[in-house]
């Protein structure tokens, strides 16, 4: 038997494997479904590299992983207060702005925040608000308001939707909503106000179906749940899914008049990044209006990129939760970090809420 074909095949395979092994790779540690697949392809073509994505489902997961010493990520996309934690924890590489000419596209309103003064480490990527999402048919039928936090906290309203409401399983988000309803800042740190908010939550809890941060999109879509405290992107997604499934109702976004939490996610480079050069190239690429607009068109995220507006569909631009007009934006607040002692107290109140009958 002639062994040459086998040897030739092996040699060919070895040659094929070489460029693959040596290929340039950008490691992006991102939220799930937080970049359009076409955008990734376009970047891969531009940089002649491969984008390797891994995902996290909340900022705490990202922090816990990095605190435990995880390495090998180039670009991360954490939310404002987590950027602050990462900066203070010395986890980030300063940005080289000479490599980021597209930074000029970003709306100055979202630059130079207290989380990262002067944007030494971070640049805005996309944003979402934590608002109400509702089944328009059911809410109209029941005559419930959809522009106030009262609808998820006031037992008078809740009695009509008992067991059809979910709130986020996040102490930070739920306390912030309760603070806003009570007329305080989302970042209030007065212990008396915290207890007042905890009492408010405990009184409303019997009417809620669940604390839920994962499956409420699906439950809204199929009509099991009629009202949620959730993220604007998720509510947008729920409506898209409901329309795709041919449901008669729509899932709409309700911006509470008391104000809400704004979450701006930013691109940062991890201090252990294997490829800071590719990381800068990627950040600059994502600051391009068209690439940034892809994401908004896909998932309905808010967009801090002024150059993106022209590539975003008009119906999306009309959503106040996505592009807050000035009067709404004035009432939005980004969540700040708590101290260790505050986090311990918050968790204690949260456990009492969860264990309360």
């Amino acid at each position, binding site marked *: 038997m002639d062994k040459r074909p086998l040897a030739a095949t092996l040699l060919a395979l070895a040659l094929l494997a070489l460029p693959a092994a040596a290929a340039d790779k950008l490691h992006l540690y991102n939220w799930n479904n937080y970049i359009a697949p076409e955008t990734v392809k376009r970047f891969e073509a531009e940089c002649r590299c491969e984008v390797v994505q891994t995902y996290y489902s909340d900022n705490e997961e990202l922090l816990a992983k990095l605190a435990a010493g995880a390495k090998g990520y180039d670009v991360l996309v954490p939310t404002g207060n987590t950027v602050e934690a990462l900066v203070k924890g010395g986890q980030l590489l300063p940005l080289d702005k000479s490599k980021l000419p597209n930074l000029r596209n970003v709306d100055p309103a979202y630059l130079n925040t207290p989380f990262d003064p002067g944007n030494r480490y971070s640049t805005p990527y996309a944003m979402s608000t934590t608002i109400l999402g509702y089944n328009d048919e059911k809410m109209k039928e029941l005559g419930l308001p959809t522009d106030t936090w009262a609808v998820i906290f006031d037992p008078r309203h809740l009695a009509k939707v008992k067991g059809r409401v979910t709130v986020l399983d996040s102490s930070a988000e739920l306390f912030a909503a309760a603070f806003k309803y009570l007329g305080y800042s989302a970042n209030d740190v007065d212990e008396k106000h915290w207890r007042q908010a905890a009492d408010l939550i405990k009184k409303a809890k019997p009417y809620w179906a669940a604390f839920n941060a994962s499956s409420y999109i699906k439950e809204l879509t199929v009509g099991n749940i009629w009202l949620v405290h959730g993220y604007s992107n998720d509510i947008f997604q729920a409506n898209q899914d409901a329309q795709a499934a041919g449901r008669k109702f729509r899932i709409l976004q309700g911006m509470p008049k008391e104000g809400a939490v704004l979450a701006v996610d930013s691109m940062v480079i991890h201090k252990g990044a294997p490829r800071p050069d590719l990381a800068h190239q990627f950040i600059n690429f994502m600051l391009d209006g068209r690439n940034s607009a892809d994401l908004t068109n896909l998932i309905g995220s808010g967009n801090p990129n002024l150059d993106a507006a022209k590539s975003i569909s008009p119906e999306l631009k009309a959503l106040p939760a996505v592009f807050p007009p000035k009067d709404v934006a004035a009432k939005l607040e980004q969540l700040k970090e708590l101290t260790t002692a505050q986090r311990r107290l918050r*968790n204690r109140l949260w456990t009492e809420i969860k264990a309360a009958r």
Partner: protein
Amino acid sequence: MDAHRPVSWRKWAVGGPPLAYLVVFFAIPTLIMAAASFRSPGEFGGLAPLVGEDGSLDITLESYVRLVEGTVYLEVFVKSIAYALVTTLACLALAYPLAVLIAQSPRKYRDLMLLLVILPFWSNFLIRIYAWMIILGPNAALAKAINGVRAVFGAEPVSLLFSSFAVLVCLVYVHLPFMVLPLYANLEKHDRALLDAAQDLGANAWRRFWRITFPLSLPGVYAGAALVFIPALGIFAIPDILGGPNDTLIGNLIKQQFLETRDWPFGSVLSIVLTVAALALAGLAAWIGRRGSAEVARA
């Protein structure tokens, strides 16, 4: 003397790796956890530096004090133990007849039946929990049937999903095979001659079961109970996904400490208490088991 040496060498060669595996992957993490429980949380997760800026050592009992400051954490512990107990008893009640059935079936059907018991493991744990969301959902046949019957009697409709009922049903579903398998392994070995002898001596079916089969099967019952109770005690995914607002268990609380609250020391304290509680209950079961078999031996 020389003849013994290779034997002991071989014994270590065979038993050493699994022992090393246990030491490395059980003992060391447990010790790290125990050490972490006496420290303070770091500002950004992890632990505060052992030696502070002022040169003081970071060793504290604060996390243990927090545990007993109020009753809220203990309440969650008690609730978790109750859920795990109910799960174990329900699994036992469902698994026992099934294990007897399999053990008494003709040999050619036995393997197939065992395969069917193990079959659910072929699909992912989370996917099976999500499947229960659909089964228990308000628009599914089950909820409609139950609420249809309730409506006849003028009762309010109930919600199955997001409830303690959903959590318990799924806990039992997930853990049932862990009860069936050790019970089957035990029952299959029983000597039928004992039952025949008892019948000859005039014992009816119930008496034969209660005085012979059940006492003999106790080691299987304890093994199954331990395999169900201990994982059910620490589970967090099922109450997270299927539970209502009142279904926070100790597993959820521990997860919260490591993620949301970034309080590794307190999370370690809760984990240690959980481990100790599980060990204590397993020890208690073993002790009762030994007393039980001693009584059987006397009788």
